[in-house]
């Protein structure tokens, strides 16, 4: 008995280790070599569209985590359950009732439209998981923003070097004079004489003054004009929100979040419930996500904390998966500030003119941290109005007026300016 016992133990251990190695090999092979990518891709697509609102692979959400579900349940049982779980429960299937009770009677949707192939694909995906991204294999590319030294620093450095050189030269000369060398006018002496000459020349005085005044006026005028122009303004937002991840990587349409842009003068900052449409299910970012801002590099742990900020604002308890009712609005910092006396309407540009958001807001889908792309000056506005030909196709409103204006200006397509887009009162009231 003992030996048997021992044998048993050893064999168990052996068995275990073999299984482990096998599994390890299998998983290795699964992850590295033998993945049927087509099947996996198909499965992932279906999973994302049908299952992801309630299930995750590695985490309990509304329903259980689904990684390795194939090992826990029979394939046939799973198919029945997925197609119509209510029917399965009604038939008195014990497992089905048990899992229903475990999740407090949360009803899972029925998916009778799925074929066996579809379900197999989904199950395959739950087993093999996400395709390994290429980015994670390669070494991380972190954009290091090298701060270029501003131009004037170079000039100051040069001036210092020249001055130092002159001082050294004059010191050397003094030393040699002290040693008894004959006094020569030297370079400095010549310069001194030249300076005296300049000082006595009235013409040069006048020219110099005029030159100085012109330069001062030019610089002064330019700097005054830049007062209040905040191009490049990039404040630190209360949440490290990356437009790149949302609009770029995940291809979310601008107007999904900024939904009033097509109806209203305001593009609208999305309310927290819009964030929760997706983030109710996305509580963490993908493993290798990196967000680089000027101040800080955010990695997964940091970014997950940022998502928690949304939950706090929305009053969402990510443990119990319930709204607590304790909400607080997110106080974003406004980047695009038009003065009150300038009226701007997003819907005119987005809906009527069909201007792409990027035209004014720049490549937002590449911005990890949003900044003001355009100067938002009046000159910038009217330059565009002057150049932009109005797209009138299919808009009955424009028909008559365009016909008349095109005739008046002798053009085929009138610009916004010719339509009256330069009149002061169109934007200032």
């Amino acid at each position, binding site marked *: 008995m003992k030996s048997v016992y021992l044998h048993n133990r050893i064999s168990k251990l052996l068995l275990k280790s073999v299984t482990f190695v096998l599994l390890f090999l299998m998983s290795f092979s699964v992850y590295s070599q033998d993945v049927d990518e087509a099947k996996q891709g198909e499965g992932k697509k279906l999973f994302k569209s049908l299952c992801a609102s309630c299930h995750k692979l590695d985490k309990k959400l509304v329903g259980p985590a689904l990684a390795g579900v194939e090992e826990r349940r029979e394939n046939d049982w799973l198919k029945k359950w997925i197609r119509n779980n209510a029917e399965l429960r009604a038939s008195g299937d014990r497992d089905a009732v048990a899992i229903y009770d475990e999740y407090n009677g949360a009803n899972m949707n029925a998916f009778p439209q799925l074929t066996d192939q579809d379900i197999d694909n989904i199950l395959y995906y739950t087993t093999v998981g996400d395709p390994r991204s290429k980015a994670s294999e390669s070494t991380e590319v972190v954009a290091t923003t090298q701060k270029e030294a501003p131009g004037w620093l170079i000039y100051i450095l040069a001036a210092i070097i020249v001055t130092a050189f002159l001082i050294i030269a004059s010191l050397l000369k003094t030393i040699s004079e002290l040693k008894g060398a004959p006094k020569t006018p030297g370079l400095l002496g010549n310069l001194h004489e030249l300076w005296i000459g300049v000082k006595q020349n009235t013409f040069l005085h006048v020219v110099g003054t005029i030159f100085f005044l012109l330069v001062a006026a030019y610089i002064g005028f330019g700097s005054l004009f830049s*007062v*209040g122009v*905040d191009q490049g303004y990039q*404040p630190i937002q209360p949440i490290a929100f990356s437009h790149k991840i949302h609009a770029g990587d995940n291809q979310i349409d601008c107007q999904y979040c900024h939904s*009033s842009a097509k*109806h*209203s*003068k*305001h593009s*609208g*900052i*999305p*309310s*927290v*419930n*819009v964030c929760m449409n997706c983030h109710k299910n996305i509580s963490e970012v993908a493993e290798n996500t990196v967000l680089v801002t000027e101040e800080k590099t955010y990695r997964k742990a940091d970014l997950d904390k940022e998502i928690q900020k949304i939950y706090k*604002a*929305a*009053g969402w308890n990510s443990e119990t998966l319930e709204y607590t009712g304790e*909400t*607080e*609005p*997110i*106080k*974003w*910092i*406004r980047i695009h*500030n038009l*003065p*009150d*006396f*300038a*009226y701007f*309407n997003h*819907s*005119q540009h987005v*809906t*009527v003119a069909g201007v792409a958001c990027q035209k004014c807001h720049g490549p937002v889908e590449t911005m990890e941290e949003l900044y003001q792309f355009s100067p938002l000056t009046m000159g910038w506005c009217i330059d565009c109005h002057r150049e932009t030909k109005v797209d009138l196709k*299919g*808009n*009955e*409103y*424009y*028909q*008559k*007026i365009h016909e*008349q*204006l095109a005739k*008046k200006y002798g053009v085929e397509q009138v610009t916004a300016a010719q339509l*009256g887009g330069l*009149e*002061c*009162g*169109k934007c*200032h*009231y």
Partner: protein
Amino acid sequence: MASNKKYWKSVEELTNNSLVETISKNEFVEEIPTDEFLGNKEALENSSTSRRDFLKYMGFTTAAATLAACEGPVKKSIPYVVKPNDLIVGVADWYATAIADGYDFANVLVKTREGRPILVMPNKEAGGTTNARVQASVLSLYDEKLRLKEPRKGGDVISWNEAHKQIGTELERLKNEEKPVVLLTGTLASPSTEKIIAEFIEKYPNVKHVTYDAISEDGALTAFEAMYGKRALPNYHLDKAKTIVSFGADFLGDWHGGFEKGYAASRKPEGGKMSYHVQFEANMSLTGANADKRVVTKPSDQVFALINLYNAITGDSLPSKSTPVDDQVKKAAKELLKSGSKGVVVTSSNDENVQVIAYAINEILQSEVFDAANPLYIRKGKDVEVAKLVADMKAGRVGGLITYNVNPVYSLALGSDFAEALNKLSLSVAMSVQDDATAAATQFTLPMSHFLESWGDVMVRERNYGLVQPTINKLFNTAQLQEVLLKWSGNTTSYYDYLKTYWSDEVLKGQSWNQALHDGFHKIEVESEVSKSEIDLTTAAAAIVATTKPSGFELTLYSSTALGDGKQANNPWLQELPDPITRASWDNYLTMSIADAKELGFSNPVKDNGAINGQYATVTVNGVTLEKIPVMVQPGQAKGSVGLALGYGRATNLKEEMQIGVNAYALYKNANPVQYNVKIENAGGKHEFACIQVQKTIAGRHDILKETTLKEYLTVDPKDHHHGWNKPAYVSYDHKEVEAKTIDLWDEHNREIGHHFNLSIDLNTCTGCGACVVACHAENNVPVVGKREMRVGRDMHWLRIDRYYSSEVETREEAKEMGLSGGDLFKVLETEAENPEVTFQPMMCQHCNHAPCETVCPVAATTHGRQGQNQMTYNRCVGTRYCANNCPYRVRRFNWFNYADNNEFDFNMNNEYGKMVLNPDVVVRSRGVMEKCSMCIQMTQATILKAKKEGRKIEAGEFSTACSDACATGALVFGDVNNKEEEIVKLKEDKRAYHVLDYIGTKPNVVYQVKVRNTNEA
């Protein structure tokens, strides 16, 4: 016949001929007080700040300010946590609701932005009209100073639960002791609320409901009840009228809630079917100002004149007395008989006997105008019951009093007695929106929701229901009367459910609640029948003769256009609204005839800056004395009579600026607006009026107004060179008389591409009510400047309603024969000033196609748009004011100060609540810039954008401005003249159309319609 009328703006202008010149010279003078500052050498030397110090400070502050300006402030964008589904940020939502505050009743549409109501407009589908007060009511919602915020007991804040508990206990006790409790409310006109009150009385049988109107129409109600069995007011379909005879009834003002819409419909001269309107009155009222014939009649004579009219029509001889206006009465009788069923007689008297006679005349005429079958329910007050309540309270016969939205401590003649009697009660509860004098005097004060925060219903006319729905969440910890009463009755239903059930059972009967809520009204078309009882008129007339015993001055108390019964006295828009007749704002005053003023030594001297002053009178009526009432000399006031507006002189919790005028309710004895035996003494002193009556002179250009008679309108060619009543202006050019419009300083532009906006103003149907002025305030963020600034002519109204008095010298020949010219002519006119004709002319930027203001602006801040609007670019304006000087219409307004966020101008733009009413689409202007009417460019642009987004053409009638939307009579019509289907196209070409000062060649985009008076008499 060309009109030879002379127009003048004030009595002073007639007597002091040099005034016009002085004022026109001084119109924009604002001397810098250098002498005051530099003249005092001693003070300068003693100053501790040396010139060097001054320069240092200045240098430092300039540098600091410059540095500070480099860094922009950080602005936050705070989105909703959960955005309401049907709300798009930046897009306005409109809700249909109704106002019923006990004095003003109207079906309205409310514009909200991000959940804040910002504008009230008439619900035209429901036949709603708005006056100035209804327009301004949205600002009273945000009145954080006057509104009650928490329930209170004896001045301490308590919780609602605690209040309910304590009041409930006390009510039970009073019920068990069988002590009477009175529920004192204003007119509710709310069927569901009346049912709730009935159920409350069922639970507490010791409760009695008494209705109290601050300004009573008890006489008309009692008379109607006696004749037709219902306690209501008859309705008048003035649109059907051919002859209207009114004895003091200001039916374009507040009498029976106003009838301006129907009246205006009968005043269209096209086709010659214009009504003929005779007004017998003492005060110059809005209605009298619009009348074809205004007969100056003292109040005591008015009642006898009415009986005489009855006698003249019927041939009866009811007891009466002869009056000085009897020949006019006979003429009126003849006109009425001629018009038959299209004639109507109305009177303002609060004596039921007088009303009975007026009703009897209408019955004899079988008047179609007079509608007893579908009466109005907007007044319910019973003076006898109110008087009995006060007497009972004083005698200790009342156990408890619950008031709702009434302020008897302020508005009863014996308000202080009432306040004292409140102390004798074991329970006194004030349910009120405002923290008024009554709320301050009761034990419990329960804050009520504003109508814009409430659910409710109204029935203004028989079977004409309106729904009230909230347009904003409650701003403060308030509740509704209905909720409170339901709770006290032990009913746990919410008022919303109650209302819905009531409506589905009693009103909708199967029709859609959602539709009714969307429309804001519901009408049930049922022919009503009316049973009439006979009244002995001889007894009534005898009673009138017995009670009318005039002596001394006769005082008529009236409700002013701006403040009405005084509920909204803390509303700066209304305080700043100039009275249509006197053009004074921020005041009430004793109006007095020119003759009486001369006798008693009152005058209104005009100062150099255009402001007018006055003296104070001490008025004693039956033992009650009111002191320091300023006197305004009023052309057209009946000699021997004076007038005084109610609604002023409120103090409790009003802003200091608004605690203005005298409380005339003190003289409102027995709720009778006419008081005899009035003694007036001149107390001297100097009162400063904020009257914009003469500031803006017309500098001798007396053809701003054009008017004609109905006969001329129908028979004479308007363009006739000699006799035309709307002939074009001629000027001398190259020694030849040529039509003014052929000569121009400017180049002609093509105006046919795109939209081209025009506004037409019909001088015939404009009654001068001022609703448009307040609507303009609300829509365009026009600041309130306060009394001091108004006084010196710095009013900011983009739209003003000029009032011109006129008097006619019979013919041109006659004038020549009299050898009159210039000043002498004015002196003759003075006698006519005893009863002048009145014309109202709304005046705003004329949006000249050839604008003189644009030519002179050195920075091109005012330019012309292709759509016809003269655009004012505030951010470009540097404030030279050249444009204002060069504007022939005097419509440009200069921002002398920052009116927002400035404690010197502590009105709605200086607090967080008041700012919620601002229109986010229009900028708030800052100091040093010129502003003016923009023809609501934000509204036209919004209409265009809507069409563009929907990819369609703009339909006729889509364009509007705030003033044209607010106009109840349709006098203001706005539209695109390049769209041939628009009404404005016809109006622009109408034979009545003219441009003000057209000979200057400004080619305005605002077109006026010549006023036509119906002088056809029998």
